[in-house]
């Protein structure tokens, strides 16, 4: 075993709690989230020669988790389109009507965002990445991060019924 691979494994052990948090913000269940992390770890180690030592390992791992999640969402959508067509798409339901039916948990509200908003919200507002870093993970321009984040935030604030989700 090479020295550098061993060093990366050690860093990955330390990163696991954050990788699990990121996956949890994307996946539908805690178990699915850990599946994503496991798959991403396996993929990362097999492709270790693609990682540039000195660059951020967390950002690289976030990108791999996110791609694994997109793959999984696509294949799930194909399966669901056969059995459960009504669940095939994820849409932000009419936010206003949703909010007054019942107060949503933060997790449930986040799960209602379209994927491209959810991943930006997760990277910036939960993982604390700078806009520039999130843009690099997602391979999109920084302006795209800013606008998706704005739409995601507005949808969340609408779903959660304003600050702290307080009773009006």
């Amino acid at each position, binding site marked *: 075993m090479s020295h550098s*691979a061993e060093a990366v494994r050690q860093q*990955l*052990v330390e990163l*696991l709690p954050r990788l699990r948090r990121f996956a949890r913000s994307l996946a539908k269940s*805690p*178990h699915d989230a850990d599946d994503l992390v496991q798959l991403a770890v396996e993929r990362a180690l097999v492709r270790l020669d693609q990682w540039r030592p000195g660059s951020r390992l967390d950002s690289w791992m976030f990108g791999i988790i996110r791609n694994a999640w997109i793959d999984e969402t696509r294949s799930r959508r194909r399966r669901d389109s056969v059995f459960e067509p009504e669940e095939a798409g994820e849409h932000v339901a009419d936010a206003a009507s949703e909010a007054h039916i019942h107060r949503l948990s933060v997790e449930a509200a986040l799960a209602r965002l379209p994927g491209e908003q959810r991943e930006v919200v997760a990277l910036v507002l*939960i993982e604390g990445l700078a806009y520039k870093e999130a843009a690099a993970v997602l391979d999109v321009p920084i302006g795209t991060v800013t606008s998706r984040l704005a739409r995601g935030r507005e949808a969340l604030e609408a779903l959660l019924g304003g600050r702290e989700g307080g009773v009006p």
Partner: protein
Amino acid sequence: MSIPEERLMAYADGEVDAAERAAIEAAMKADPALARRVEQHRALRARLGGAFNAVLDEPVPDRLLSAVRNAPTTTDGDASVTDLGRARAARADAAADSARKRSKWTGAQWAAIAASLVVGAIIGHFALQSSELGPIAQRDGHLVAQASLEQALSTQLASEQSDSGPVHIGVSFKNKGGEYCRTFVVQQGASAISALSGLACRQGGAWDVRTLARASVSAGSEGGYRPAGSELPPSVRAALEDQIDGEPLDATSEAQARTNGWH
């Protein structure tokens, strides 16, 4: 002056340069509605953190640790790593292993979630478990400190506290919205082995509990309730790091803040 919502959000996230920051701060002074919107954007960020940081306190499942330690790498020089069949078999083993353990760790996980989130579940948990004089109460959909916790947050200085009280104050600081906040560990109930750690901020004359997690308590210490090594649970530390504006208060400014009633 009209400022696009995107720029207010960028300001709340610390993503603007000095010139834009000055312009936005001037506009916020002139228009309290702008300041409220910035505060709303920050509150959402804190709330997302409060919900998801709980994951950091959970034990990492063995199957993930095992994947990190044992999954093959290209740099191992091991030809079999490209053998998909073998990789799949390893994955199936890990899956079977995790399936055996799942029922066990899901229990721990739900306990962590129930103890960590400032949501209905924990409010219900408290309503059931604590008497009227428990350390935390629900008020208007918020969790607020009461009784010994409120007392300690208002009066106890981190620099001058005994190890034997029911509450231990960790760090006092100002958050990005200008509120005073403090981390704490409070003994839960009569049993010394159960403790909660959290972060509370002074708002509207009360201590608003923004983050709450079960604290791991060092075993064997008699009557001890402080978390092992006085470390905050990762979720509370993450909330602190995300919300703090600058440095924690030193002993002098902490005493000063107490004198001024945490305003």
